[in-house]
C-alpha cells in the first residue's frame, strides 16, 4: 500500500445556496499522478483550491500524515500550484519568476542562482531567462509556471487545466514534458482537466466528478474498462450502449437478448431483474467476421473520413445508434451509406451498466 500524501474526508463546499462539492473523500498517494476529471462546473477547481488552501471547505477535513491540515494557510502548505492562465509575475523576468519561491524562503543567493539555472535548463528555457513573461509564447509561459511551481521541491504539485490555452500539437508536447517532470521529480501531481484523452494519457489514477460529486476513482484502465456507471462510461470516450434483456448465466459468463439477436458476455455475473445496459467501446467492434463473436446487423447512416481512421455511424433494426472507428485502409471500397452490415465484437469485450442509470 502506497503512502498517503493527503486525504480528503467528506469535503463539501457551498457558495450561498449552491452546492459546488458534496461529500468528496479521496486519498492522494505519495508520488502518484492523480487527475481530477469532469465536465465544466463539476467542482474540480473548487476541490483544487481547497487542497491548495486558497479556499476553506464548508465541511469535511484534510489530513496529511495523520494531522488535520484543513485550516493550514496556503503559504504554509508547501504545495506548488500551476494556475489556468499561468499567473506569472508580469513585472519579473523568467529567472526572477522561477527564483521567487526560493527568495521567499530566504535561501542564499548562490544556491538560488544555481538552482534557477538548473531549472531553466530542465524545462527548456535556456536563453530566455532574462525575458519578461509577456515576451514568451504560450508554451514557454507554461514552462515558466511549471518551473516556478517545482523549484522549491513542493510536496504536491497542483495543476489546474494548465494546457487549456495551448493548441493541439503544443498541448501534446507539454503533456509529454509534464509526464517527464513527474517521473524525474517524483513529486505527487494532482492535475485538473476536462479532456478525457489527456487524463487517460497522463494519469496513474483518475477521479471523475460530476455536479460536485466524486463518481469513481481508479487507475486509468480501470475507469475506462470498468466504469462505475453510465456517466463515467460516456464521459471517458465514445461508447455504444444497447439494452440487454433475458439475462441468464451461460458457461463462464452470461447470455441475453440484444436488438433481436443473442449475445454473450464473459466474464460476467447474471444481474437481478434480468435486464441491463450492455456497453461496448467502438474500438472493440469490427466489420470482419470471426467465429465465436457477437454479431448485430446495422445500417450505415453516415461515413466520416478522419484521416488514418474512418468513423461509421450506424443504426440497428431496433433503432439503437452505434458508432465504429476503423482504420481507413481496412475500409477500402467498404460499406457506404444505406448499406446493411454486420458488426462483430469479442465476447470478452464490453461491460454491463445497471439499467435506468
Amino acid at each position, binding site marked *: 500500500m502506497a503512502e498517503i500524501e493527503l486525504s480528503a474526508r467528506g469535503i463539501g463546499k457551498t457558495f450561498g445556496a449552491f452546492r459546488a462539492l458534496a461529500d468528496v473523500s479521496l486519498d492522494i498517494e505519495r508520488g502518484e499522478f492523480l487527475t481530477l476529471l469532469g465536465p465544466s462546473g463539476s467542482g474540480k477547481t473548487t476541490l483544487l483550491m481547497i487542497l*491548495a*488552501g*486558497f479556499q476553506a471547505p464548508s465541511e469535511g477535513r484534510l489530513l496529511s500524515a495523520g494531522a488535520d491540515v484543513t485550516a493550514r*494557510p*496556503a*503559504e*504554509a*502548505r*508547501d*504545495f*506548488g*500550484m500551476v*494556475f*489556468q*492562465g499561468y*499567473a*506569472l*509575475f*508580469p*513585472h*519579473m523576468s523568467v529567472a526572477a519568476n522561477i527564483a*521567487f*519561491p526560493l527568495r*521567499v*524562503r530566504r535561501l542564499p543567493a548562490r544556491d538560488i542562482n544555481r538552482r534557477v539555472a538548473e531549472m531553466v535548463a530542465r524545462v527548456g528555457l535556456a536563453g530566455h531567462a532574462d525575458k519578461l513573461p509577456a515576451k514568451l509564447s504560450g508554451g514557454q509561459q507554461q514552462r515558466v509556471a511549471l518551473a*516556478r*511551481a517545482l523549484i*522549491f521541491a513542493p510536496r504536491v504539485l497542483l495543476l489546474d487545466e494548465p494546457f487549456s490555452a495551448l493548441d493541439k500539437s503544443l498541448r501534446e508536447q507539454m503533456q509529454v514534458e509534464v509526464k517527464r517532470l513527474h517521473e524525474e521529480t517524483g513529486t505527487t501531481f494532482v492535475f485538473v482537466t476536462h479532456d478525457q484523452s489527456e487524463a487517460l494519457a497522463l494519469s496513474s489514477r483518475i477521479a471523475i466528478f460530476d455536479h460536485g460529486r466524486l463518481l469513481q476513482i481508479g487507475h486509468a484502465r480501470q475507469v475506462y474498462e470498468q466504469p462505475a456507471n453510465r456517466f463515467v462510461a460516456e464521459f471517458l470516450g465514445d461508447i455504444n450502449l444497447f439494452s440487454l434483456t433475458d439475462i441468464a448465466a451461460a458457461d463462464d459468463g452470461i447470455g441475453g437478448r440484444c436488438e433481436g439477436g443473442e449475445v454473450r458476455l464473459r466474464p460476467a455475473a447474471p444481474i437481478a431483474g434480468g435486464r441491463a445496459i450492455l456497453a461496448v467501446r467502438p474500438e472493440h467492434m469490427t466489420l470482419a467476421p470471426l467465429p465465436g463473436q457477437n454479431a448485430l446487423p446495422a445500417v450505415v447512416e453516415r461515413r466520416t473520413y478522419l484521416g488514418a481512421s474512418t468513423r461509421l455511424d450506424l443504426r440497428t433494426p431496433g433503432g439503437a445508434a452505434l458508432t465504429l472507428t476503423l482504420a481507413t485502409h481496412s475500409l477500402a471500397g467498404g460499406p457506404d451509406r444505406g448499406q446493411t452490415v454486420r458488426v462483430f465484437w469479442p465476447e470478452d469485450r464490453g461491460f454491463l451498466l445497471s439499467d435506468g442509470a
Partner: protein
Amino acid sequence: MRHAAAPLLLAPLLLLLGGAYVVPFLGVMRWSVTLPVPGFGQYVRLFTDPLVLSVFLRSFRICAIVTTLSVIAAYAICCIWVRGAPALRIIAEFCILVPFWISLLTRAFGWVALLSSRGLINTWLQAAGLIDEPLPLSQNEFAVILGMTHFLIPFAVFPLASAMRAVDERVLLAARGLGARRARIFWSVFVPMTRAGLIGATMLVFVFALGFFVTPAILGGGRSIMLAELVYVRIFQSPDWGLGAAISVVLVVLVGGLLALLFRLVRPAQLVGAR
C-alpha cells in the same frame, strides 16, 4: 470604428482650445520678451532674483510633499475601494466621490474654519484645557500642504484604481501558494504590478499641484506664496507683467514636459480609469 469624418467631431474642441488657450498664451509669450523692454531680461531675473527663486523652490518642495502624501493616501484608500470587504468598499467610494461635489473654495474655507487660531480645533483644545495658546495650524505651509493634499487625493485615486483593477487575482494567489506572506506579496508583487498607476497618479497630482492658486492663497495667508500666486501678484498687484509672463511660460513648458513624459510611460486611458 473609424470614419473619415471623425476628425470633424474634434473640430469644435480644437477651436475652443485654440481660441481660449493657444492664442492668449502666444500673447503671454510676447509679453515675457517685450515688457518692460525687449529681450530675455525677465528670464534672467527668474534665475537670479532671490524672491522668485525662493518661490520656485518652495513651490517644488510643497508640490513634492503634497504629491507624496496624496499618492500614499490614495493608494491606501484604493486598496480598500478595489480589494476591501464590500461594506468598506462603499465607505471608500463615498469618501472618494463626495469631495467632487464640494467646490475647491468651500473646502479651503472649511479648512480655515477648522485650523485657524479661533477655529474648531484650537477652540476645542483650549476649552478642554489642553493648550493655553492656539496652535499655529493655519496661515502657514502646514495648512497649505494639508488643504492641497486633501483636494488632490481623489485625482490620484483613478489611475491607481484602474491599475489595481487590472491586477489578476490569480497572480496574488500564486504568490501565496509559492510561500509568500502578505507583506511580501504587497511589496514584491502588488505594488510593482500597479507601477503604471503610481507613475500616472504621481505626475498628474504634481502637475495639478504646480498650478494651485486658491488653496495656498487662502490657507497660506500670503506667507507661503506659491508660483501661481506669484504670477497673480505680478500681473494684478505690482505692474510687473513681464516677470509674471515669464514665470507662466516656464510653468507651461515644465508642465508640458511632464505630461509628455507621462504619456510616454503610461497609456492615457489608464489615467482616467478606462481599460
